[in-house]
């Protein structure tokens, strides 16, 4: 018995020494500038941008895990790749010390709920009575993800629209779809320098981030940049290859004159307020309820939105109104033409009725569902029965039709 115990003792001792010899040890205890321990820094060399500097923030406040350990397995327990994912964002970006309140707001925003798309689809496809309330329980992206509820319109939404929302896990799907979604980083992330091994988080949202999703229907994201999605068939052919420019999803585009705001260097987020994009704590159903910046906010409106909120980037400089964009450049704001714009006969005209002389228009939109095939349900993450295909008759880039909504003359764009 004694011999066995001696053998066991020697074996355990050998294991203790062997493990110690193989173990990677840190040269010191790593702390952030606030004195918080971040042993992640002993191994990780990633360098985020200044606002989230590794010396100040460290890794664990965003990526969780265990910052007190250096053993890979222990240190990585509970780690998350994307801290901005809406499933965890209260513990990460939205924690009390960082950006409190934002997760609750964002989760109610249209980009997270997609209520408008769902409501319109179901209403137009006759799944919801005309008198039904627009805001119905169970009809947001997250609720559909959890419930699995489906119908003809919802099946279409799940398969063809299900990647344009903030609940989508970043990188879940291959190709350009993998770039979409991810909660906060759907907008706030841009590629960083390769040597820094970490993408950059920014408040200067580039247009490309918005147009990852905002590139269909009215094609506003494309038109703004001077891109027109045409039929084209890839023409002109150059050395047997398609010569036309293509979008990431393979659609052909022609170059048209970009919006003059784009030419001036303004991005979407220079005009659109955080309350519109990240929500203002109200749960809207449709885009027109949520959006509050108008042309008049800058041009003749003294920087006030239609909801009476002061535009944070519009300010008075040397007696005139300017818009200071995200890059810090100041743009003098022109007042509307007192004759053309303020004339009594133009009183009911919206700005776009005159200032959008040509817009892209998609005619003859129809869809087909083949019940024999399967297609990826992007909310559930699996193939289900029924494959949808979209068709259109033709695209045009021409003078839009004008219509009347309420007392206002607007442009009407089929898309």
């Amino acid at each position, binding site marked *: 018995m004694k011999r066995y115990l001696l053998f*066991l*003792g020697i074996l*355990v001792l050998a294991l*203790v020494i062997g493990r110690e010899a193989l173990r990677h040890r840190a040269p*010191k205890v790593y702390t952030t500038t606030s004195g918080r*321990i971040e042993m992640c820094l002993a191994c990780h060399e990633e360098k985020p941008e200044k606002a989230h500097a590794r010396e100040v923030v460290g890794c664990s406040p965003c990526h969780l895990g*265990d910052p007190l350990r250096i053993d890979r397995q222990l240190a990585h327990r509970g780690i998350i790749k994307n801290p901005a994912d809406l499933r965890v964002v209260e513990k990460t970006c939205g924690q009390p010390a960082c950006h409190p309140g934002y997760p609750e707001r964002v989760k109610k925003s249209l980009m997270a709920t997609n209520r408008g798309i769902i409501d319109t689809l179901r209403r137009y496809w006759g799944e919801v009575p005309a008198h039904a309330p627009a805001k119905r329980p169970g009809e947001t992206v997250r609720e559909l993800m959890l419930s699995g509820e489906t119908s003809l319109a919802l099946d279409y939404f799940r398969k063809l629209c299900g990647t344009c929302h903030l609940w989508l896990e970043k990188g879940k799907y291959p190709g350009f779809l993998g770039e979409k979604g991810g909660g906060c980083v759907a907008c706030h992330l841009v590629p960083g320098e390769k040597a820094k091994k970490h993408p950059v988080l920014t408040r200067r949202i580039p247009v490309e981030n918005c147009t990852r999703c905002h590139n269909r229907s009215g094609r506003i994201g494309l038109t703004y940049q001077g891109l027109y999605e045409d039929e084209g068939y890839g023409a002109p052919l150059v050395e047997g290859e398609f010569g036309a420019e293509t979008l990431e999803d393979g659609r052909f585009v022609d170059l048209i004159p970009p919006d003059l705001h784009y030419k001036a260097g303004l991005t979407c987020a220079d005009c659109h307020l955080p309350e519109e994009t990240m929500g203002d704590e109200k749960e809207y159903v449709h885009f027109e309820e949520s959006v509050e910046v108008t042309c008049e906010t800058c041009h003749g409106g003294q920087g006030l939105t239609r909801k009476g909120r002061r535009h944070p980037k519009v300010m008075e400089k040397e007696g005139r109104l300017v818009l200071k964009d995200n890059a810090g450049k100041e743009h003098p704001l022109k007042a509307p033409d007192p004759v053309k714009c303020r004339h009594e006969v133009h009183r009911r005209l919206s700005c776009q009725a005159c200032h959008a002389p040509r817009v892209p228009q998609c005619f003859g939109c129809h869809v087909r569902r083949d019940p024999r095939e399967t297609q990826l349900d992007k909310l559930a993450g699996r193939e289900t029965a029924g494959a949808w295909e979209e068709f259109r008759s033709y695209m045009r880039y021409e003078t839009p039709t004008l219509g009347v909504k309420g007392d206002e003359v607007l442009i009407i764009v089929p898309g």
Partner: protein
Amino acid sequence: MSYRLRPWVSWGLAASFLLAVVSGLLASYPFHEAFPLISTVGIETVLPFGSFLRAFHFYTGQLTFLLLVWHLVEALLNHAERRRPLWRWSLLVSTFPLVTLALFTGYIVRGDQTGLAAGQIAEHLALRLPLIGLVLNRLLFAVAEEGVHRAFMAHIYLSVGVLVISGLWHFRLRAVRLEDLAVWATLAAAVSLVLPVSLEAPSFETLIKGPWFFLGIQELLRHLPPWLAGLVFPSIPVLSLVFFRLAPRGLALVLVLWTGTYVILTALGALR
């Protein structure tokens, strides 16, 4: 019915206690009580054999506590209280809350989330005690004002003090056999190799849990006033043990019921 104490439990307790104190003294050299968490992480991640030393100290401490409970139960079954005068039996019984306190202060000194929670709860409870609360807090805790300095001193003094005094008076410390030390050291070392000791980073979590043996009291604090949950309830087993000779059957029932209740409360606390 007669019951004989198992010598391997008694000597295992002595050996584990000795190993816990010696490993604790070794671990205390690189430990700076002014920076408890940084020190603990330094021992864990920078010091060669540090994580093993810390785990070894932790598990020998846990073994001491568990074997002490076992030894106590065996002593009661053996009617040990009848063979000793009340003062002597009371002193022996007092080793149980003192060792528990030594174990508890060990959690405080590491300065992590569990330690912070344990220190704060202990301080608030001590301050609720009439008359002696303030003095007791100044002696043992005072974590809000002074950090873990006092808890660290209490941890060392209590551990070494109880070991030396009971080793001189209750058992012969120098009679602890090398074989016993080797067996219990091997056991603790083997566990240390497999199970890393917990260390939680301070967080914004609103649900905090103290040491495992404190979860029952923590759970009770949610339902009862602090003086009842933190003072009266834990005093029941200690007083029952001291006066066991007066009504062995009745007090044995009290102890069984108390233990059952505490196990349920601990399970409820752990599941939160």
